[in-house]
């Protein structure tokens, strides 16, 4: 036995005057930081275990606790920030890959923060969304280039059969998060909130629990490389099917759910034995080429009898534009792009932080490429990867997205504090855990309400911004990059984003 050099990440401070020894902190901490010594009538803290989730802080009835990044540090060094030293110590100790959760935290440039939006002044009136209709309805699916509508007795009659479309009342959906990565209660909250909000949630690659088939019209079911829980009934239970090729948080790597999280219900849903690791292969072993993808797309279309859109999700990687073009030509009804900042329940830290690219650049490149090839209408473009607020969404739509997936933001609305410990299965907020003592922490009634509120609030803000631009339908913003201007970006970035600099 030798001394561990793993450093404490957080400091736990307790105001002993305020502490009433109620031990709520102790009961709430799933990492066992807090303990009570009855003889001494004192609370003790093991800072080494603290993940900074703030659960105890929020639940302490006297607000006696403060958790902050541990102030101990080393002599500052340009090449060796304390974080780098900590990581090395951890790896020297364990001999393992560093694991983490959520999306990139290196802080690659967030382009949303360098884009500003337009508003009307004088020459066209802004529109007041409280007094006039403001339309956010969005359709996901392949659109033909033209449609035959004729007037019969003065009434328009449709002569073209359109491919299947998803109807969204707001251009935001809940992104793919699997049952297994997140709890039953969270799945239920997402499903019910999507239903209440007239939008979709995405099952992720963990199959669909029988209890949630009732939310099928608001469900996008995923088919990933592990094919967990994929069967004909599952495919037909949802409103659309998404083939998951990659994920923004870990491009090139399959999904991981550790065996500890695989309980009986998850085992049934995923069709794997209880307690086994659910490790999706890195690629789909029946897709080694674009033509293989085409076969899977059409196999799935056959399975759903061409009644539901079938799309493909890829991580935003360097040649995303060319790949997306191939995907559209392979017959996908929608393409999902997941950026570098997209979340995950478990990913190697190095992959999470350094593989892929910010969604803004990928989105701009893909939308432009599909337009140059004249096939932008042939598929909808859904983007994901770290959307934090409604203006991120507005900017994404102006860059060319049809809709966005929000994942991490949805979980944050349920309590997540981005502590990045999903992979431990001990989520103190009861979100990314299957421990029945912890999963109760998300009350699906409250969860549904909070998620519904979030979508409502963002939708109201989107309407307000649209009205300010003098636009009353979201389709007039989609791909309308003239409503964006950049601040502080260089020529290349402006070119890739296809926007002008502010002042131009």
């Amino acid at each position, binding site marked *: 036995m030798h001394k561990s050099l793993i450093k404490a990440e957080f400091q736990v401070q307790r105001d002993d005057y305020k502490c*009433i020894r109620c031990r709520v902190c102790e009961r709430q901490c799933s990492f066992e930081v807090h303990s009570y010594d009855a003889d001494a009538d004192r609370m003790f803290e093991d800072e080494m275990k603290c993940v900074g989730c703030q659960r105890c802080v929020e639940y302490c009835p*006297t607000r006696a606790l403060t958790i902050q990044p541990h102030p101990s540090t080393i002599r500052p060094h340009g090449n060796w920030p304390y974080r780098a030293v900590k990581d090395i110590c951890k790896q020297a100790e364990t001999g393992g890959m560093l694991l983490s959760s959520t999306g990139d935290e290196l802080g690659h440039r967030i382009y949303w923060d360098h884009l500003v939006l337009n508003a009307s002044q004088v020459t066209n009136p802004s529109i007041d969304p409280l007094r006039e209709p403001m339309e956010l309805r969005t359709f996901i699916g392949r659109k033909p280039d033209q449609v035959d509508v004729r007037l019969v007795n003065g009434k328009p009659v449709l002569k073209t059969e359109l491919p299947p479309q998803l109807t969204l009342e707001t251009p935001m959906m809940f992104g793919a998060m699997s049952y297994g990565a997140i709890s039953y209660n969270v799945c239920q909250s997402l499903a019910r909130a999507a239903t209440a909000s007239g939008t979709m949630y995405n099952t992720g690659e963990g199959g669909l629990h029988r209890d949630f088939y009732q939310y099928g019209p608001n469900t996008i079911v995923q088919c990933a490389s592990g094919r967990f829980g994929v069967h004909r009934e599952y495919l037909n239970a949802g409103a659309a099917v998404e083939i998951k090729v990659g994920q923004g948080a870990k491009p090139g790597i399959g999904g991981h759910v550790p065996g500890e999280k695989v309980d009986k219900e998850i085992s049934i849903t995923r069709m794997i034995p209880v307690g086994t690791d659910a490790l999706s292969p890195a690629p789909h072993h029946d897709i080694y080429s674009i033509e293989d993808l085409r076969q899977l797309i059409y196999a799935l279309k056959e399975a759903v009898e061409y009644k539901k859109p079938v799309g493909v999700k890829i991580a935003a990687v360097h040649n995303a534009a060319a790949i997306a073009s191939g995907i559209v030509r392979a017959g996908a009804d929608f393409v999902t792009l997941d950026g570098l900042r997209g979340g995950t329940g478990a990913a190697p830290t190095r992959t999470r932080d350094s593989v892929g690219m910010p969604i803004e650049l990928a989105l701009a490149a893909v939308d432009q490429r599909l337009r140059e090839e004249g096939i932008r209408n042939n598929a909808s473009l859904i983007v994901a990867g770290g959307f934090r607020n409604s203006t991120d969404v507005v900017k994404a739509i102006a860059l060319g997205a049809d809709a966005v997936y929000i994942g991490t933001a949805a979980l944050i609305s349920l309590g997540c504090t981005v502590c990045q410990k999903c992979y431990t299965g001990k989520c103190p907020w009861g979100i990314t855990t299957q421990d029945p003592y912890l999963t109760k922490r998300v009350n699906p*009634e409250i969860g549904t309400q909070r998620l519904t509120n979030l979508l409502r609030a963002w939708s109201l803000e989107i309407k307000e911004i649209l009205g300010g631009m003098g636009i009353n339908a979201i389709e007039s913003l989609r791909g309308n990059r003239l409503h964006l201007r950049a601040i502080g970006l260089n020529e290349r970035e402006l070119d890739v984003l296809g926007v002008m600099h502010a002042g131009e």
Partner: protein
Amino acid sequence: MATKAKTTKKRRRVQADEKVCIGCKLCEVACIVAHSKSKNIIRAFNEETPRALSRVLVEESKPLTFALQCRHCDDPPCAVACMTGALRKDPETGAVLHDREKCVGCWMCVMVCPYGGIQRDMREGKAASKCDLCLELDEPACVAACPNAALFVVEDED
């Protein structure tokens, strides 16, 4: 027939939903504060002696947890068993109320209660201790304090 209601003083009951009870015991903390002299959480715990008793108790057999308190029965066995009349069913509010002045601490009520909703209070002489529904408050303190809506008020429609 009971329906959920937020705040009502008349004929209210507290119900628990064990499916979302997270066992934090904030209900107990709130109950103690509500029945303290100062109504100040830090004083109630750290300064008042004897400390008030919680009339709601979280039962725990992990992962199962739920908060338990007097059910304020329509036909309360405790009131029948009480030889001094310290326990009575209040016809107006439907609450089963306890008069500490009359209580002699015989524990008959504790023995007959089918729910375990009455505790012994040994702090200053012997007496029973039980939920009074916080009738003086808009909402029972435990319900207001529950972070996960695992405790809620229902209203009896008679």
